[in-house]
């Protein structure tokens, strides 16, 4: 059996520099990522966390930060006990100029066997990446309700 992984490719009319900013600046992420902040100084070895309504939902460590081409961090979802028990997975964004567009490839891999996290991220990333594309192209992020996604533990924090 191949190891489970999640890959999401998106083509966005923007520049790699703007896209990098949108992925690493809380000012942007709060607009398209359910008010989530990304907290890191984006240097290799530094801690990384996602914070929603003042509550840390995910933590990790920066593995690669090659602005504006490649960003990678470990990822541990800490909102529920089962997820906390898992070894960290790995998130990598690759930003490539593609004509006048940017091809964004998100790979989320290295999941523990029987991971409960892969189910949640497989539902979450397409919504986040779609909203990011909307924000960069039209200036308006998407409003996607959590109950359309079925990620119960995040929904609770979001509503708090």
């Amino acid at each position, binding site marked *: 059996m191949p190891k489970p992984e999640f890959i999401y490719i998106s083509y966005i*009319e923007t520049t790699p520099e703007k896209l990098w900013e949108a992925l690493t600046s809380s000012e942007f992420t709060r607009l398209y990522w359910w008010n989530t902040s990304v907290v890191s100084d984006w240097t290799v070895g530094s801690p990384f966390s996602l914070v929603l309504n003042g509550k840390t939902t995910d933590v990790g460590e920066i593995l690669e930060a090659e602005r504006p081409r490649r960003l990678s961090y470990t990822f541990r979802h800490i909102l529920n006990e089962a997820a906390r028990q898992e070894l960290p997975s790995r998130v990598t964004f690759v930003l490539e100029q593609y004509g006048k567009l940017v091809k964004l490839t998100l790979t989320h891999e290295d999941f523990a066997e029987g991971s409960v996290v892969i189910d949640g991220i497989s539902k979450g990333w397409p919504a986040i990446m779609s909203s990011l594309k909307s924000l960069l192209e039209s200036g308006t992020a998407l409003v996607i309700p959590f109950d359309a996604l079925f990620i119960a533990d995040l929904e609770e924090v979001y509503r708090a």
Partner: protein
Amino acid sequence: MNVTDFKPTTVYTIYIAATPEAVWQALTSAELSRKYFFGNAVEVELKVGGAYVVRPPDGSVHISGEVVECDPPRKLTVTFNVNWPALVEKLGPTLVSYEIEPAGDAVRLTMTESHDRPISDDILSGGRQGWPAILSSLKSLLETGKPLAVKMEPPTQMLDALKKLGIATP
């Protein structure tokens, strides 16, 4: 052909700020598809058993199939057979399903490509490369009025794998 024999091999989900009706129209209209689908026109007879054809700008038939499920504006399933000699004989039919669901003010569009037998990753790489570009452009068209200028060639790994199977490609 029995739909339950088909297993999903590629799934792509994208959220679009549009109504389900607008997404349905984009998926089924020749005029709109030409803008986001590498210049290809989708011609579909919207009833079960109706014809599904994708024509490049030269008017030839690139993909031909048949409507298997038609529930506007929620679900469209079609056979989606690339018209290269011997492809269907060697690889079997391809099934493509579009599911449209409301998600707040937006719409979740899920494209699922399925096959009724094991297909190698090399061959599947064509769809895995193409779908994100096509559906990214469809989203841009509906949200901004402007599709993306995406140009791409079929992946070499797919062309090589087809050649090995004796399937002639253009």
